[in-house]
């Protein structure tokens, strides 16, 4: 029993210590970002890697999720004779919740893990030590462009996911189920407000972008310099960032509604 308490205590202490480490790491990223020069070329390169290369998975997922939502929604709404509210149902679910959360999770798996693995490999191949020996701060050169690109890319990908989801809902609702197109769009525009829905969804995705950027770069930067270490960090990045997205989503939603 004593051993169990001791193990729990030790784990908790380690978690708190890691939280402190991540906070300090975050402050260092902000400090480096505010200090010129802004590394524009690596930033654009990262935008391409994290954003453009994620477009396909985001697009297909958005479309598929919207189609499934419309299918399930239509069946349930038709029981109450409210099929015409399908647009509003799909819109609210996508814009408020599924868009930001699923985009966050997909980007974590697709781009966050890649970022951790890339930085971890740089640790293992002594590239970061090489930068230090050249009097160059690796956070400035390696972390800041990746973190900034991740934060910028997340709301953009969220917007694409949501728009394609709405399109998927329209395709199933109107083309497959035979709902009137005007009714779908009318319900959508009437139900989805800018401040309470669109702005909250976009802000959420910015928050998720910050979380994924912080976790993925931190895990890579502190990876053990072995292949096993890089693999462990990559796994931990996906687990930690996914949990952070899901938990923070609840608190954000609760606070936004107050």
């Amino acid at each position, binding site marked *: 029993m004593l051993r169990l308490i001791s193990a729990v205590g030790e784990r908790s202490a380690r978690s708190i210590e890691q939280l402190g480490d991540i906070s300090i790491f975050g402050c260092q990223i902000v400090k480096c970002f505010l200090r010129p020069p802004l590394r524009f070329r690596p930033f654009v390169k990262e935008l391409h890697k994290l954003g453009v290369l994620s477009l396909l998975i985001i697009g297909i997922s958005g479309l598929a999720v919207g189609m499934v939502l419309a299918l399930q929604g239509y069946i349930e709404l038709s029981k109450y004779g409210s099929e015409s509210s399908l647009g509003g149902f799909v819109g609210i679910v996508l814009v408020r919740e599924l868009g930001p959360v699923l985009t966050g999770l997909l980007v974590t798996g697709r781009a966050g893990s890649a970022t951790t693995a890339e930085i971890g490999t740089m640790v293992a191949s002594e590239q970061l030590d090489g930068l230090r*020996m050249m*009097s160059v701060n690796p956070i400035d050169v390696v972390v800041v462009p990746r973190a900034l690109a991740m934060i910028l890319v997340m709301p953009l990908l969220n917007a694409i996911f949501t728009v394609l989801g709405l399109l998927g809902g329209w395709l199933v609702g109107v083309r497959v189920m035979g709902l009137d197109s005007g009714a779908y769009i009318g319900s959508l525009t009437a139900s989805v407000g800018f401040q309470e829905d669109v702005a909250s969804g976009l802000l959420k995705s910015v928050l998720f972008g910050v979380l994924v950027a912080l976790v993925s770069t931190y895990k890579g930067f502190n990876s053990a310099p072995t292949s096993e270490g890089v693999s462990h960090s990559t796994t931990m990045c996906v687990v930690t960032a996914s949990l952070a997205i899901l938990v923070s989503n609840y608190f954000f939603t609760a606070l936004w509604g107050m």
Partner: protein
Amino acid sequence: MVLTHPISVDGAPRPEGGHVVLEGVRMEFSDRVILRDLDCDFPAGKISIICGGSGSGKSTTLRLIGGLIRPQQGHIRVDGIDVAALRRTSELEKVRQKLGMLFQKGALLDSTNVFDNVAFPLRERTKLDGDEISARVRECLLEVGLKPADERLLPSELSGGMVKRVALARAIVTEPVILLVDEPFSGLDPITSRRIELLLQKVNKRSGITMIIVSHDPGSTMRLADHLLVMLPDRYVQGTPDELRNHEDPRVTSLLTHEVDDSILEVDHMLDTVIQRGPTDLDSTWA
């Protein structure tokens, strides 16, 4: 920083400084002692070679000098400045401007080509314009024997020997006073290895740079070294190659000649046990 000692100019004055002293350095990683009370002196302008068995702390010594890790005890003085005592990154960066390091696997930035890798420290640390940087990079690449056509290659497209040469060019491009070199001959065939050896010798002779090299290669060690530090499990021995060639401790000569007398193995194993358990177990181990 503006370059003051162009490496290409024959007979350029030897950069000032380059003296490294380690005093009572103790280093351990998760309860495993790597270095215990290491005292040594690397003379300025000379080629010093560190050799020793695997896990004896050779690369750790280089990383300590570079300030990449901090010892639990002791002083590491680079031209009088105690690197181990520096707490601020800015102070450490000032010392590192005197240092260049060639890592075992090159540590080249794998997303940028050869030219950009070598130009990187100049872009970051000097106010040279684009043309000056290009000229300087090409000069260094030529110095290490790389052709202009190699400039656009990515590190993944280079052979092991080329990686070391590019890494060397990057390490010397800012004219460091001290060059730390980790296992420059490992994984190379004898011809490429000899090429790297001659290259290091040429750089040292031309610019008077202090070189501290970790090496397992006895041939290169004896040819290159002005000064040797041999790291054994229980002691550190230093001196010139001539002094150490016929040293009383057979382990020293074994490391320098690669001719191992089997009786050493038993003694070495016992010493390992003593070191792991601590001196109190000395009698029982020898009994």
